């Protein structure tokens, strides 16, 4: 049984420009200990999906609906605020892109870490402090005792991100939602943090949903990948299959757009024409249609459903068979 099962998740925001459907009918499940990559560009709905899982969408203006949103045997949508609080940060926790804005600048690192434990596990101050220090040591922070008494601004960016991760893992959550956890970091620090996340996942069996726009990070971390476009799933597949043989024109365009460190580096990049659509004013039919090179007349009729391709793959493209043999499109 999957640890998390989401069916037909919809998140909409009522704005002055009309209704924005940030997530529009997304279904997926997550197995224990696996990493699910969630990729897509700004506004594709990947972060909103995570926030909805955490019950962090402000309402109004946000409205969250789903046919099912099950965590183990609990229905996340039916939980009271109090019950949700005991899940959040404890069994499901989240780490954000920017540790500078998501850590409280007025509290010491130690206070922020021990608060998590005191709220969720009702341990003594002394015990909380001991575990907070152990948590910092776990994520490779030298002199953890001394760091506990420092404020976020006294730490470097990489250090702050480690503190965030330590905080996210303090209660040994079953699911970690990581929203662009390394985007603000330099590559050498990113390498340290990714390695650390993998190590902790192996040790504690945490399932991770990794939201990122960096296809290199996804390739290294994910077992499976969901590709999102304009609030819907465009494609879902095992990581290796997705990168080897993308079955949605958007995935293919995305892979062609990424510059590579090896191979033919002199050719033009296969960019995708145009820009992502305005969610308040989506084109009729498939939202990717105006930018797509495989577009046919029937694409304008209605948004294509997600077609099951077998082997755990699916693609929301009517022309998915035309993509079967990419002429070097995947490289």
């Amino acid at each position, binding site marked *: 049984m999957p640890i998390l099962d989401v069916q037909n998740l919809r998140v909409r925001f009522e704005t002055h420009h009309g209704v924005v459907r940030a997530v529009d009918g997304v279904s997926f499940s997550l197995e224990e200990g696996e990493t699910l990559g969630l990729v897509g560009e700004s506004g594709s709905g990947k972060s909103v999906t995570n926030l909805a899982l955490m019950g962090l969408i402000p309402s109004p203006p946000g409205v969250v609906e789903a046919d099912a949103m099950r965590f183990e045997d609990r229905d996340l949508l039916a939980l009271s605020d109090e019950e949700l609080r005991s899940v959040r940060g404890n069994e499901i926790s989240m780490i954000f892109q920017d540790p500078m804005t998501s850590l409280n600048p007025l509290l010491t690192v130690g206070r922020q870490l021990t608060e998590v434990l005191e709220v969720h596990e009702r341990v003594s101050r002394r015990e909380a402090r001991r575990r907070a220090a152990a948590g910092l040591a776990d994520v490779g922070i030298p002199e953890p005792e001394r760091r506990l008494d420092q404020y976020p601004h006294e730490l470097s960016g990489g250090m702050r991100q480690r503190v965030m991760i330590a905080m996210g893992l303090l209660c040994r959550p079953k699911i970690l939602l990581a929203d662009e956890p390394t985007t603000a970091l330099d590559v050498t620090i990113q390498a340290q943090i990714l390695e650390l996340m993998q190590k902790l996942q192996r040790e504690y069996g945490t399932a991770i949903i990794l939201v990122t726009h960096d296809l*290199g990070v996804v390739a290294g971390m994910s077992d499976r990948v969901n590709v999102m476009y304009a609030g819907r799933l465009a494609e879902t597949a095992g990581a290796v299959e997705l990168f080897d043989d993308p079955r949605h024109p958007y995935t293919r365009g995305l892979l062609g757009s990424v510059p590579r460190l090896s191979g033919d580096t002199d050719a033009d990049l296969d960019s995708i024409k145009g820009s992502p659509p305005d969610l308040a004013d989506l084109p009729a039919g498939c939202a990717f249609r105006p930018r797509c090179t495989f577009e046919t007349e029937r694409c304008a009729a209605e948004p294509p459903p997600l077609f099951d391709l077998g082997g755990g793959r699916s693609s929301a493209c009517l022309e998915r068979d035309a993509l079967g043999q990419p002429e070097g499109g995947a490289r």
Partner: protein
Amino acid sequence: MSAPLLEVHDLHKHFEVGSPGFFGGQQEILRAVDGVSFELGRGETLGLVGESGCGKSTCARTLVGLYPPTSGRVLYEGEEISSLSHRDRAPFRRKIQMIFQDPYASLDPRQTVSSILTEPLRIHRLARPRERRLRAMQLLDAVGLNPRHIHRFPHEFSGGQRQRIGIARALALEPDLIICDEPVSALDVSIQAQVVNLLGELQERFNLAYLFIAHDLAVVRHICDRVAVMYLGKVVEIAERDALFDDPRHPYTRALLSAVPHPDPRIERGRERIVLEGDVPSPLDPPTGCRFHPRCVERGKVTGDLCASVEPTLGSRSACHLEPDV
């Protein structure tokens, strides 16, 4: 042979931080750029890479004259420009333009595109007033935007389109050199690819030289002819692109390249990374000797305490005591 387009000799840019003020605070010297030299030819692209705080952006800003250099010389076609007065520098300012990272912050939200693109022409008294509008429309066309959108304001464009406006503005004065400071870092990948391709196309069309500052090494490999790697205010390695990427010599370059994730699960899962320990030290108090030595995984190969005591010089290729020709 004629002089290269741009020569930079032993450029330093230090900032004084903290004030000696009332409470007797300490004045410290932040060595953002600490002895950088390179050349750039006409029509060539030199990549300047390194992590946050390595001094690459300060270096760029010093080159265009946004900061006065602490010491060192900048030569444009053999003529020294770093010591010129603001007024004498004007003709050179025309020839060296800049594109910034953030397309939201680098355009005035209250100016129309027309005003943004004709302003440089007005300031430098180029073209007659009525010709300026036409010129602005040509520029929009050159960067792939609709010339009829000339009366729109920046907020009416997407991020990628705004970056195109920034590029059009840089092109307005027909420069020889454009300094691109992280021009695609804020853009989504599909848009980033469009802008990278556009920069390549414009370079060919107008024979532009680029100094391309970026932290994304894959983008740099794609666009540059030569690459300089900076660490804590110094260039640690400089080489032709393929030589640098295929056979990196400095231990820092090697670590940097090995840290870049490849968008291919098969490569990503099998490979060994050189994971550096710790963070980049503060430029207020750089390590003695080789600035990279506290984090270097290869320092054990050098005998004695050479790495901690003697600063290696940048020879033909890499500033490392292990480099045979130094």
